[in-house]
């Protein structure tokens, strides 16, 4: 099994549709749990007068177990016979959407779970719309609680149709819809004997079909400076290569100043190296004594990302304090940071219905999304999100708290 093939996926969906139970059941049926963990779960379940509660494997907070909900996101490790996984469990309650986004932002693929007895609900829509905003197009849909629907194909088809219709309206092309009963293990790791009509893969088999995100090595160089260290007599400009390759002797351009110089050396502790590629944390020294600082973007002359102080973006607001157009916010994009304000809010959108709440609005409230134009104090180097994600997304910070995430639609 190749060690480097680890896929991170998040499970999202409406509260009580069975996210934590599905993960717990998957781990149990694949023999992935230490016996003392199973004992602990059985004991805690019995102490609180319940049958063995698989969700307790993830819902570890006392409040979560007593109330039977997930409050915060959890990550656990899992391996199939094909590869390794990091499973990210996300809360389904409306109260904890920011925790769901935290989980989803770290995933490469997603599983949307829907209770067939309830169908598409508010958080089903909101979560999947957030996935779509986050650029996720690697989605498996599981229709849970088939036991409550008498394992009926007709019922499954009806909810599948409803879900597929919604997903296509938000540009998520889901290929797989799997009928399961997480609590009983039907079609989780083992093929169900109660749904002969279903010919597709089990949930476990479907995971192995999800694709790992491609590396950005073949793109033009983007090397944001994270910090500058003085080590012995060298001035080392540290950072992570976000796209492309950086090489000793290469001509480079520094944004936003536009100065050009050459890479004098590529530095890694205890390693002799002359180049580094996307994903590597390194340092560089430059040939001329140019002054670099945090937030500078090193790129190739002629292949610079656009530098602008006006950004069009889709944002999702995650703070109980409303967006105030008069208030100055901080924008952070890769290691770039500057003051900004929202110049205009073109459309304010209800993230669970996609209804436009207002055009040319003055505010955005918790859980809403919006199409905005941001005016930044210092210009930022940005990229189309679909080309170099690291320069195509940002967070907004209000009073030292991250209040929104955003995806750049274009520089304007």
């Amino acid at each position, binding site marked *: 099994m190749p060690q480097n093939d680890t896929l991170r996926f998040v499970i999202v969906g409406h509260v009580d549709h069975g996210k934590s139970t599905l993960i717990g059941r998957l781990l149990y049926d694949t023999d992935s749990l230490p*016996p003392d963990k199973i004992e602990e779960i059985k004991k805690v379940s019995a102490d609180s007068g319940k049958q063995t509660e698989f969700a307790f494997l993830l819902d570890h907070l006392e409040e979560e177990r007593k109330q039977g909900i997930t409050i915060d996101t959890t990550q656990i490790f899992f391996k199939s016979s094909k590869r390794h996984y990091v499973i990210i469990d996300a809360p389904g309650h409306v109260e904890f959407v920011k925790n769901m986004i935290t989980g989803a*932002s770290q995933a490469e693929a997603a599983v949307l779970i829907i209770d067939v007895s309830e169908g598409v609900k508010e958080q089903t829509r909101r979560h999947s719309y957030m996935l779509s905003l986050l650029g996720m197009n690697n989605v498996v849909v599981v229709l849970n609680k088939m036991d409550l629907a008498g394992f009926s194909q007709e019922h499954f088809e009806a909810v599948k149709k409803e879900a597929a219709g919604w997903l296509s309206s938000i540009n998520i092309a889901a290929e797989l819809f799997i009928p399961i009963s997480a609590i009983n293990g039907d079609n989780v790791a083992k093929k169900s004997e109660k749904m002969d009509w279903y010919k597709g893969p089990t949930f476990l088999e479907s995971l192995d079909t999800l694709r790992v995100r491609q590396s950005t090595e073949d793109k033009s160089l983007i090397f944001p400076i994270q910090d500058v260290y003085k*080590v012995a007599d060298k001035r080392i400009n540290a950072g992570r290569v976000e796209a492309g390759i950086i090489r000793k002797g290469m001509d480079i351009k520094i944004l936003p100043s536009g100065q050009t110089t050459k890479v004098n050396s590529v530095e890694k502790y205890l390693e002799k190296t002359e180049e580094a590629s996307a994903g590597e944390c390194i340092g560089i020294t430059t040939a001329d004594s140019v002054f670099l600082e945090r937030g500078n973007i090193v790129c190739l002359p002629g292949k610079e990302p656009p530098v602008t102080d006006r950004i069009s973006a889709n944002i999702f607001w*995650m703070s109980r304090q409303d967006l105030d157009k008069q208030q100055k916010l901080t924008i952070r994009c890769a290691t770039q940071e500057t003051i900004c304000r929202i110049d205009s809010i073109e459309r304010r959108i209800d993230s669970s219905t996609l209804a436009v709440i207002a055009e040319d609005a003055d505010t955005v409230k918790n859980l809403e999304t919006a199409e905005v134009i941001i005016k930044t104090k210092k210009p930022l180097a940005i990229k189309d999100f679909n080309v170099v994600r690291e320069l195509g997304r940002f*967070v907004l910070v209000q009073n030292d708290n*991250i209040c929104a995430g955003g995806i750049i639609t274009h520089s304007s």
Partner: protein
Amino acid sequence: MSNSHLDKLENQSIYIIREAYSQFRNVAGLWSIGKDSTCLIWLIRKAFFGQIPFPVLHIDTTYKFEEIYQFRDKYAKEWNLNLIVAKNEEAVEAGMGPDKGKFECCNQLKTVALKQAIAKYKFKALYLGIRRDEHGIRAKERIFSPRDEDFEWDYKNQPPELWDQYKTKAAQEEHLRVHPLLGWRELDVWEYVKRENLPVVDLYFAKNGKRLRSIGCKTCCGPVDSEADSIDKIIEELKTSRVSERSGRAQDKEDAYTMQKLRSLGYM
């Protein structure tokens, strides 16, 4: 480049370490001398090209194994660490120990000692080597995790954290905990120890059919049955073991939520 699983983990950890230092400067690395925090110290050394620009803090409960103290002093010197040893002297002198209650002992000798050190040195952030796969409560952690003035962890209202953009310190927050190893598994740590040829305390290796898998105070951590007397054998054992890592740690066991209560009060 080699783009192995360990390379990805290492790069991610170094990125986090540099982000925290860039933001806070006045930071410290918490070193329990166990395998995880020794990996952490090594990653910090790599992040700063060999010379760590801030102190390394050891919270000494005085109940640690002799091997721990020897290892600490040896590598503090070899790696040229600015080592600070912090103790809750008052509680130690008053005879605090696990016989006075394990919960209270952990709280006094670890959490309070840490509070005292932070108050003295005014650290704004601390690096900790905790991992998500160690305990269900730690699996809920953020990479940058704020603590208030009472050291409380507000686990019901954690800040959002996306795309390697981490929390900045707000006025009402005492300090931030920074967790560069959060995404590592126990097996990853051992494979990294092997790849980087890192030293680890002897207590991890089996003698007479027993070894320590997780090291705390000698009063409160028990060995597991094992024949693994080398790093390779430990890696092999972990690939097949069905026992969880902290099964020998007393503070995880008292009741189902002891760890949650300890952690909400500021425990590591």
